[in-house]
């Protein structure tokens, strides 16, 4: 009986949340066009520099996405509390950018902590485009 519940749980969660990085990019594309009529497409290069550029945080520290995720997205990163973060690049970690709610949750948190504002749809799309370009 218990197994059936577990099985149902897995089936349900797969149906409810699964997406591909490409589907996610499509959603961000729709948003990016709404945010800026001049939007022409996502850029892996812009994503790479967004990922690595350090910014002066109001707490006095220099921070970037790479502070935790390391500058090579194929590597494991580390949180401030010393816990390993699995790599960001889908080529080495197929789970990335497949759960829209999780992706939105972490963009929400990490953008606030690094940029002290929300990320734009363009920034999110560039970021994913860059991660997909990593071979």
């Amino acid at each position, binding site marked *: 009986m218990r197994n059936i519940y577990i099985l149902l749980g897995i089936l349900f969660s797969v149906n409810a949340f699964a997406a591909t990085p490409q589907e996610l990019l499509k959603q961000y594309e729709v948003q990016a066009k709404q945010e800026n009529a001049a939007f022409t497409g996502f850029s892996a290069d812009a994503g790479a520099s967004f990922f690595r550029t350090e910014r002066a945080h109001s707490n006095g520290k220099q921070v970037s996405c790479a502070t935790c995720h390391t500058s090579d997205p194929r590597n494991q990163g580390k949180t*401030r*509390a*010393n816990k390993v973060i699995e790599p960001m690049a889908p080529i080495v970690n197929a789970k990335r950018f497949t759960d829209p709610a999780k992706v939105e949750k972490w963009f929400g948190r*990490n953008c*606030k902590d690094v940029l002290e504002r929300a990320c734009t749809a363009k920034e999110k799309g560039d970021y994913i485009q860059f991660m997909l370009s990593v071979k």
Partner: protein
Amino acid sequence: MKKWLQFLVLITSITSTSALLASGGIGEGSEGRSSQMPPVMNAKWKAECSGCHMLYHPGLLPERSWKAVMAGLDKHFGESAGLDAATRDEITSFLVLNSADKSANRRSSRINQSIPTNSTPLRVSETRYFISKHDEISASTFKRKSVGSSANCIACHRGAEKGDFSESQVRIPR
């Protein structure tokens, strides 16, 4: 003579094992309460509270502390850890239900007793109980790259996420 000795050892080990089993196993104190925190599980807690650090067992802090931690997730030790309201409420209930002032094990009781009733610590590592148990460990040991900070219990206590802080499971990494 040798055979007799072997027989004696066998009998002794059988009887002591069954005595141990009858008493509920290792970790049962003289007061008849377990000294270790009981295993607990909630899927949302496990998923949402282990992304940035180890899972802190609910038996490490009293109810009022967990409520304060959960009410402040938007600014959680300098980071954004906010959750949607339903998830946050479910995790809060789970933490409260198994908190140090609700759990009967000796470890949780001692932690709870070491906290003045007029204070609400957000960190286990701030409690008098924690400080007294680690007074021989230097600040530089906690700062080692392999540890990070006193909050990273699991670097030294292998069983920390299960609430097991027994001395036999401790090893300070280099």
